[in-house]
């Protein structure tokens, strides 16, 4: 896709809503150095979101969309869940496949784009919840890693099936209780970041979204490595404040608590990934 597609015809500009004119004039297209520091000044690629007030997922969305190095040539594949309510509002190409097969669809899209546009860089990023990535879609997720698909997978882990009332998921920690899982989770949380490493991902990170700059760094690293080497995986803690009984202003506090324990920052890079990251740092892109 060309950025020209966002250029509004001068004759009809006066009829366009300001938010659309801003997308052309104030969004950070064509600038790989864009990042979360642009948020107060640049037009964001998500206008409004339909998540609950104070939802940490909405912060994750803002940081990720602000950090994509190549938004005009990025396709996001999402999945069913709270996140799927936001995708229709973002100013990028998104694809909503069946629940759980997001990595299979993303693989196909990436391969076709490489064939159709061999001279252009096109990034494919999967953004899905823990149910789609770790439970229902684990097969498709891992198979895409085994096949070394050049895609980035970002899991929004809220440790529960939140928008269906609170059932435990593979990502729920042992013993945690929810409204529809009153007996408590009987097994341990699936260490998806470790599965990703064992399955062939070249860059893996686990973190909360309490630090915007850190989210930007891992998103950029994951995308650059996926472009040149192979699959990458980011595991983000985005707690469901409703399901764990917190107020709208307590999401950040919750993430900061988990920063010290089960979501302590963790990063893995293969040797090829280290090379790419080193190169990008030298180019001033990281």
């Amino acid at each position, binding site marked *: 896709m*060309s950025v*020209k*597609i*966002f*250029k*509004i*015809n*001068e*004759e*009809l500009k006066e*009829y*366009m*809503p300001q938010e*659309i004119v801003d997308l052309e004039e104030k969004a950070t297209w064509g600038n790989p150095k864009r990042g979360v520091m642009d948020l107060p000044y640049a037009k964001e690629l998500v206008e*409004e*979101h*339909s998540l609950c007030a104070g939802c940490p997922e909405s912060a994750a969305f803002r940081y990720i969309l602000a950090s994509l190095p190549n938004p005009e040539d990025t396709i996001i594949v999402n999945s069913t869940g709270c996140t799927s309510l936001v995708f*229709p*509002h*973002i*100013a990028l190409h998104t694809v909503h496949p069946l629940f759980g097969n997001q990595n299979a669809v993303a693989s196909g899209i990436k391969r076709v784009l490489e064939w159709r546009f061999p001279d252009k860089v096109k990034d494919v990023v999967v953004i899905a919840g823990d149910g789609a990535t770790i439970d229902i879609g684990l097969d498709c997720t891992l198979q895409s890693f085994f096949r070394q698909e050049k895609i980035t997978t970002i899991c929004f882990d809220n440790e529960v099936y939140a928008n269906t009332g609170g059932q435990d998921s593979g990502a729920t920690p042992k013993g945690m209780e929810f409204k529809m899982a009153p007996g408590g989770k009987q097994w341990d949380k699936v260490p998806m970041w470790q599965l990703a490493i064992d399955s062939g991902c070249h860059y893996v990170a686990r973190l909360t979204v309490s630090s915007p700059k850190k989210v930007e760094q891992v998103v950029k690293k994951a995308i650059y490595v996926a472009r040149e080497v192979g699959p990458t995986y980011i595991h983000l803690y985005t707690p469901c404040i409703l399901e764990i009984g917190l107020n709208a202003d307590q999401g950040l506090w919750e993430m900061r608590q988990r920063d010290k324990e089960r979501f302590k920052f963790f990063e893995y890079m293969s040797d090829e990934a280290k090379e790419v990251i080193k190169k990008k740092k030298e180019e001033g892109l990281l």
Partner: protein
Amino acid sequence: MAKLGPSGYSPYPVAVTEGVLTPPPGKALMFNEIVDEETAMREAAKAMLTRENPTIFPGPQVLYAWNEEAKKKAKLIKEMAEVLGAKIIPMYDYRPKYPKIDPEKEINPNHPNLTIWHNKIKACIFIGVHCHYANVALKIIRAETDCFTIAMCSLAGHEDAMITLRDQHAEDLEKFIRIAKEVKKELGK
């Protein structure tokens, strides 16, 4: 709410379920009749000039300067609006808006009736809207409003519009503007 019957559940335009299909090349569709393009243009201009709050809904294919044809069409649409005394309300993309659209400034294919109701639009022209979304919007407008719809499509046309003009490129828009000026004169406006 209109009672659409089974066609409401069909993915196809309502007119298709009633056996009405798009016109052959060089012709136009007026309600369920195939007519000459000029006849249809004349009626379309008349509807826009005589009904209340005529409005043009340009879609992304003409709102954005993505090729030379789009740039030419944008100029002509503005001229067309001046000749017809019509408002322009853009359908700039197809994202559903949350919590709701501003019906004075925009139209959304997922609930186009809101814009038509709010502005009491009795005649409108769809131009530059991608066909699948034009079909969705025209079906909803046909079911929920009393608006006279005109589709100026650069491909095969839309059965659910009251008047369908197909293969409409810049030169056809110029022809329509010329006819609209004639009709305006005839109506003494």
